[in-house]
């Protein structure tokens, strides 16, 4: 067993950014980098992956892979993995990756690491760094079996162009339909061009200080002004009050995020919230209470009424970016 095999996730007909991040990282180790793309129209996406370092790209293409079905994708990927015999398998810790990665590890009867933020090589062993206790602690860990599988938190590695050989092989996998005990009836994804919180470069988050759902368009306007890599988030107080959907919640029982910039508006900074965003590169807090604990973690603090500061900030950002 040798080399690195990447699972390159497809969503809405495009490769996820995380696929480029892990391919770029894998390339650094000087080993053969293969990738597996599963999806309807997957073949057309292969050249893009070669740009970031994939030497060999295995494609499982067909209309039946339009929707992600855990069992079908696991069977397809495991057949590719058995053909490639990699020493290391890397995936992204996206919503799909969190479902997929432990399932392939279980099928291959090995362990795996979730949500890693760093990866290095010690001889033929990978050493992963990953958060535990919602980021209150970090561990370095190693696997005892091969293949070694790690899913990597999006935004952990930069994307570098570093072309690989890019040979494409279409794989005809045989799926045991009797083992597929689920049928996806419908998938409803909100029409939005915002990135997912876990992948966003900038997050503008609102808390109880937003006073109600009507405050959130203001936050959305700021995120929009900050550019395409930006999205919004919320504290649990805002979610529990029904102002925002749970998908937006950041924190110990929401999403763990580490954007370049996190702007907390009307959020006090409870330990469970800090756990979910404490690794953001730069934190800004806008809160009218100078004693709010969020200020002890923020790189920049504004002590004032968010209803005045946020719209003014949006205008300033527009000026700078235009």
């Amino acid at each position, binding site marked *: 067993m040798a080399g690195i095999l990447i699972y390159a996730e497809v969503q809405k007909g495009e490769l996820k950014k995380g696929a480029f991040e892990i391919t770029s990282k894998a390339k650094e180790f000087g080993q053969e980098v293969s990738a597996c793309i599963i999806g309807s129209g997957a073949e057309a996406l292969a050249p893009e992956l070669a740009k970031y370092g994939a030497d060999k790209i295995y494609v499982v293409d067909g209309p039946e892979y339009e929707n992600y079905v855990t069992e079908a994708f696991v069977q397809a990927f495991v057949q590719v993995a058995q053909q490639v015999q990699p020493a290391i398998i890397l995936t992204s810790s996206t919503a799909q990756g969190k479902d997929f990665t432990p399932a392939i590890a*279980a099928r291959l009867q090995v362990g795996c*690491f*979730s949500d890693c933020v760093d990866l290095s090589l010690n001889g033929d062993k990978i050493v992963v760094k990953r958060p535990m206790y*919602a980021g209150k602690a970090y561990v*370095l860990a190693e696997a005892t079996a091969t293949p070694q599988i790690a899913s990597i938190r999006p935004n952990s590695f930069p994307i570098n162009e570093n072309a690989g050989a890019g040979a494409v092989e279409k794989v005809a996998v045989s799926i045991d339909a009797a083992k597929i005990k689920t049928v996806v009836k419908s998938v409803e994804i909100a029409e939005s061009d915002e990135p997912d919180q876990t992948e966003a470069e900038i997050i503008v988050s609102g808390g109880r200080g937003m006073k109600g759902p009507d405050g959130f368009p203001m936050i959305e306007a700021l995120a929009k002004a900050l550019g395409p890599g930006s999205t919004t988030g919320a504290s649990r107080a805002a979610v529990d009050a029904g102002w925002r959907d749970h998908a937006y919640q950041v924190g110990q029982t929401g999403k763990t995020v580490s954007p370049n910039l996190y702007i907390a508006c009307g959020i006090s900074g409870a*330990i469970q919230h800090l756990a979910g965003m*404490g690794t953001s590169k730069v934190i800004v807090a806008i809160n009218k209470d100078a004693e709010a604990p969020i200020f002890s973690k923020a790189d920049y603090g504004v002590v004032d009424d968010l209803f005045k500061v946020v719209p003014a*900030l949006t205008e*300033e950002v527009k000026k700078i970016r235009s």
Partner: protein
Amino acid sequence: MNTVVCMKQVPDTETLIKVNPEGTGIATEGIKWVMGPYDEFAVEEALQQKEKFKAGTVSIVSLGPDRAIEAIRTGLAMGADSAVHINDSAFYDKADPYATAAVLAAAVKNLEYDIVFLGKQAIDDDSGQVPAILAEMLGIPVITQVLKLEVEADKSKATVTREVEGGHAIIDVTLPAVLSAQKGLNEPRYASLPGIMKAKKKPVDVKTAADLGVDVGAMTVIKEMTLPPARQAGKIIEGETPEEKAANLAKALHEEAKLI
């Protein structure tokens, strides 16, 4: 409707984590231990299904040391009928998600179930792996991050809503199945006083990994645990008016942090 709930006792979310002297795990003194918040949704859902069907049992399975009995009793006080406590410190201390799933699978196999409920993630290791591995070992399907569950009257099938990126998917699944609970599935009940009294008399079967015939080593090893560097308070942006502060903040983010 018979269900099994795999439930883990974890440190309360308020806990300030400290590293043990060996540097390989947390210092456990003074920690308040609670039932995992996602596991509470799992217990609640099992109870609601039993109530809907007006029949069946809810069994809790938990791997953990002596202290785990408190979380198990909480589950029984909420209304579960019985529990299996895999009380085996030697196994537990080294267990990773794979070994955990192996021992849970061995215990679950001895029980009656249409659905096995778990939390989507234990908030100590944050791995989110046990549901999928357990399902593989039991040879049944798994749906993770479940937001809604509708079981058919004959218990042969269920319709499940799960969270996906940017939305949700509606999936039909043949039972038995493993489902992992996401926040939003339900509102967990509190244990009532009569519930707490009754829980004391409910049966808890105590087992070791060896009793269950499990001899699986961990597939992953923690080499070192550290705390993230403490964040320092940065600067407070000055200004006469909110507008001036906003302008100064934008300037700092543009010129100093170079983020906009």
